[in-house]
């Protein structure tokens, strides 16, 4: 392959036909990871927006309900999880949309590398720049909701683990709606019901930590959900992208 790709230097010789591509998948995946990271970091506001949204929503609750620390402490695990979930959802619509609009999505589909793996790389970047920062920020907001001590670590870990599943499941919805001009609202309709198991076990883990019960079972189930999502979602995303590109 390397000799075939030597480029303009050999522009007059006869064209060789490439064979079955070998071993290029890692190069392509790494390049896609790097490209998406660079892209997101150049538009820093898109990385920051979900975080600001998260903080804002959490601010609304004490104002809307009551500043009573005891009441806030009881609802804090659920609030933090729901708000983080919505913040992650907010950024999903852009996951494939800009690629779709400028035509790089069809080029991605025409790569001789497995599409599911390339899509997984894009989802990984989404998680790295949305799910992970949300998880790291959640304990700070937990303080503001007077979340009982001892559950902060579990909150961050459960969010980090759970948001990876959320990114994977959400990417299916994003891929299905990328060809639609008004896909933004539709995506939440498609994706939110599928988020419920992750929410149950994620918020459950934090609650268990507050009650002093073991959290390993919850985290194990979150991990299992992530494993299932990792097995199925890339194929569903790839299939959905193929559908959307011909919408």
């Amino acid at each position, binding site marked *: 392959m390397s000799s075939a790709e*030597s480029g303009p230097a050999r*522009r007059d010789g006869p*064209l060789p*036909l490439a064979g079955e591509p070998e071993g290029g*998948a890692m190069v392509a995946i790494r390049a896609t990871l790097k490209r998406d990271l660079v892209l997101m970091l150049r538009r820093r506001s898109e990385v920051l927006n979900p975080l600001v949204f998260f903080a804002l929503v959490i601010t609304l609750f004490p104002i809307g309900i009551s500043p009573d620390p005891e009441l806030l402490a009881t609802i804090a695990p659920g609030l933090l999880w729901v708000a983080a979930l919505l913040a992650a959802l907010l950024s999903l619509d852009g996951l494939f949309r800009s690629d779709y609009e400028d035509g790089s999505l069809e080029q991605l589909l025409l790569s*001789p590398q497995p599409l599911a793996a390339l899509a997984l790389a894009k989802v990984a970047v989404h998680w790295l720049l949305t799910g992970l920062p949300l998880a790291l920020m959640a304990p700070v907001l937990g303080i503001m909701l007077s979340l009982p001590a001892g559950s902060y670590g579990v909150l961050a870990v459960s969010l980090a683990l759970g948001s990876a599943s959320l990114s994977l499941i959400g990417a299916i919805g994003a891929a299905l709606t990328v060809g639609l001009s008004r896909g933004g609202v539709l995506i939440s309709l498609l994706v939110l019901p599928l988020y419920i198991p992750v929410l149950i076990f994620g918020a459950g883990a934090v609650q268990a930590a507050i009650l002093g019960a073991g959290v390993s079972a919850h985290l194990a189930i979150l991990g299992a959900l992530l494993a299932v999502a990792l097995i199925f979602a890339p194929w569903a995303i790839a299939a959905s992208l193929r559908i959307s590109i011909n919408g």
Partner: protein
Amino acid sequence: MSLRLQARKLACERDDRWLFHDLDLDLCAGEIVRVEGPNGSGKTTLLKILSGQLADYRGELFWRGAPMRRVRRDFLANLLYLGHAPGVKAALTALENLAWYQALAGASGDEDDRLAALETVGLAGFEDLPTGQLSAGQQRRVALARLELMPRPLWVLDEPFTAIDREGVAALEARLEAHTRRGGCVLVTTHHALRASSALRSVRLGEGGAGVER
């Protein structure tokens, strides 16, 4: 084994409308095949089918004698497709864009090659600007630099002359002919009148009817 893409009894029905049917097509090394037809006659759809993007067709496709479904990856490794949209990321520089395309093909590529390719399409000096700051024609040229950079024998180009100035058009036409002389093959749709040459052939898509080769 030489380059050969064949379509047998190709038909495409989109939402109960036959875009074309009973289309037989042979693409061989050293040819420029131009797909013609009025708007909505299915030119882009045909190109999408022949570039392996759209699996929703009837009939058979053969790549180097083997059915497409079995040799899809090998086919894609030899294909370069340019669609309506240039596929250039506005926030990335021209060099970064090209590097990603090389990596998609599975090769890390070489910076000098990329610089040379950009120079050939007349973008010397613009390599490190985000392509969002370039004009539409220049963005198109970034996409066209892939033709220089990646030695894929089969080119499928959907309206490649869009937004390109007159010199650019002449250069691209010369590029297409040079490609066929090297044993490459070009499938193209365009509203632009291509220079007549022995390599040029036309396929006309009618209205809901069979394609006619001329």
